[in-house]
């Protein structure tokens, strides 16, 4: 897997800090790519606004990343032997037939620290049937595995009071 940076996407919400990932050399992080892409498509403009409000207002400001908002669509991915398991969730806005999925990892299952990845449009009943979405899900799982590995090995450390992640040397520039 190529290297990527872990960077803050939003730390202004009252109950949760959101991180994102950026491929080395990429101009945009994965979450901005997702929102930019679908915001530019007329049929997705309103769903994008709802999803963003769900992330920043409902999760970020009102409730935090609580189970009920996160477990609606969870896929468990078994990592390589002895690497354990990662749970990558899909953030879905709670509304009938919502067309977009955004993937996320709750750091250590905490309600106040979430890493957002990319996502896509759900064009069939299953993820596997939505080709683009399936690729983003696989990618999100790869990011998640690497991040969980870094947490286990103390390459990165969670500062619980500040709701922030630092490298082992205390830097907020994190490359994995």
């Amino acid at each position, binding site marked *: 897997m190529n290297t990527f940076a872990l960077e803050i*996407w939003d*730390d202004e919400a009252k109950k949760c800090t959101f991180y994102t990932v950026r491929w080395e050399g990429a101009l945009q992080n994965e979450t901005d790519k997702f*929102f930019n892409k679908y915001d530019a498509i007329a049929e997705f403009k309103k769903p994008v*606004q709802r999803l963003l*409000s*769900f992330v920043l207002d*409902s999760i970020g400001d009102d409730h935090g990343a609580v189970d*009920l*908002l996160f477990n609606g669509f969870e896929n468990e991915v078994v990592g390589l032997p002895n690497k354990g398991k990662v749970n990558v969730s899909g953030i879905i806005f*709670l509304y009938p037939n919502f067309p977009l999925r955004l993937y996320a990892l709750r750091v250590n299952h905490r309600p106040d620290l979430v890493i957002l990845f990319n996502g896509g449009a759900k064009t069939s009943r299953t993820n596997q049937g939505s080709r683009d979405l399936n690729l983003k899900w696989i990618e999100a799982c790869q990011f998640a595995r690497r991040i969980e590995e870094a947490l286990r090995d103390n390459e990165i450390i969670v500062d619980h009071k500040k709701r922030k992640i630092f490298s082992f040397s205390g830097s907020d520039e994190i490359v994995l």
Partner: protein
Amino acid sequence: MRSKVAQRIQEETPEEVRIFVRQYTDIVLRINQILQAKGYTQKDLAEKMNKNPSEINKWLRGNHNLTLKTLAKLEAELGEPIITIPTQRPRRSARRA
């Protein structure tokens, strides 16, 4: 800091959309919390309300556009308020001279 992309989309988002999302999420969470507190399963609730469990699942997973009628049925069955209306009078706006 907040992502500039997020800031831009948030600025373009009509206030009513944000109000809807927040209230809808609050309601779905509230229903689920009452169920948990009372130790009801979806199956229990379905039986009490003479409904199909799949219909109750839609309500509780947020996969349903909740109507006031549905909310009233749920409040009656669960015995707890789900939505409350502010009791204070609305502020008067200043009259133009």
